[in-house]
């Protein structure tokens, strides 16, 4: 499986993502600068976590307008798998590749800790190695992860089984609507989630429950 990680100014999980991808897929991802015009041929494009462009204007808003995103959008529309983690999720919503928006955490605080989640939808290229209802534990590290969309959009996401991950109801770290932690696009080739699966792939980091996400992609895309 060939992968690419997009690097924006102030991305800070790009190397975490690259390390996880290399360990699990066996090949190094291409690291692609935001100012480039094209993403090299890849089965998976990762938009990593961080604080791209210093979260100026709104988190993800500037990165969504960067040059490389034109090609990411084109490739997503052609069916290439795109995974947005944390700031990457924020960028995907600002780019219009996923519905809704990530608001400031209701508690106003930056939350940095592992959270319990439930896999809600295992029928996707990103989640097929999980079982529906399986509990997983990934770290979160964000100040703006409070997923918000109007009720019609939320109903539609749920009706189409596009909520991939939900926070355990007792462990919602940010006030996200309906405990939503991660969602799929209509075509199910784009996943955005706030928690960090790439930081839950090694027993030394306290959890390996992020690994099946990358194994799912290998199974689906290789």
């Amino acid at each position: 499986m060939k992968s690419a990680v997009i690097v924006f100014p102030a991305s800070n999980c790009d190397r975490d993502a690259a390390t996880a991808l290399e360990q699990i897929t066996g090949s190094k991802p291409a690291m692609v600068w935001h100012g480039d015009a094209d993403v090299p041929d890849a089965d998976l494009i990762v938009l990593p976590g961080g604080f791209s462009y210093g979260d100026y204007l709104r988190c993800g808003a500037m990165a969504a307008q960067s040059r490389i995103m034109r090609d990411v959008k084109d490739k997503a529309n052609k069916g290439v798998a795109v995974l947005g983690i944390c700031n990457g999720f924020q960028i995907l919503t600002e780019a219009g590749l996923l519905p809704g928006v990530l608001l400031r955490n209701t508690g106003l605080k930056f939350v940095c800790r592992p959270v319990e989640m439930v896999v809600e939808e295992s029928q996707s290229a990103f989640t097929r190695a999980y079982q529906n209802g399986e509990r997983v534990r990934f770290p979160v590290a964000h100040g703006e992860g409070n997923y918000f969309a109007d009720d019609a959009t939320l109903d539609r996401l749920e009706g189409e089984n596009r909520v991939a991950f939900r926070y355990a109801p007792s462990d919602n770290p940010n006030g996200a609507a309906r405990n939503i932690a991660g969602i799929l696009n209509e075509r199910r080739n784009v996943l955005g989630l706030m928690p960090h699966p790439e930081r839950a792939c090694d027993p030394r980091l306290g959890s390996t429950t992020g690994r099946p996400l990358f194994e799912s992609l290998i199974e689906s895309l290789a």
Partner: protein
Amino acid sequence: MKARVFVTLKNGVLDPQGKAIGHALNNLGFGMVGDVRQGKVIDIELAEANEVKARADLKDMCEKLLANTIIEKYEIELKA
């Protein structure tokens, strides 16, 4: 021409920062302070003399970048 764009949260969208500011004002003794909403002001210089054209361009800017219309509304003010 100069423009001032106000970007504010739509009614009903939670504004925890506004709430925190409201609480702080209450704590400072401003007991009359009720609901507080925080927004943004963006000043833009435009090389455009035609007001109708400027307004149309600014609206486009708001829709494409300055506001996220899922949660925010905007107002445009023009100054000669």
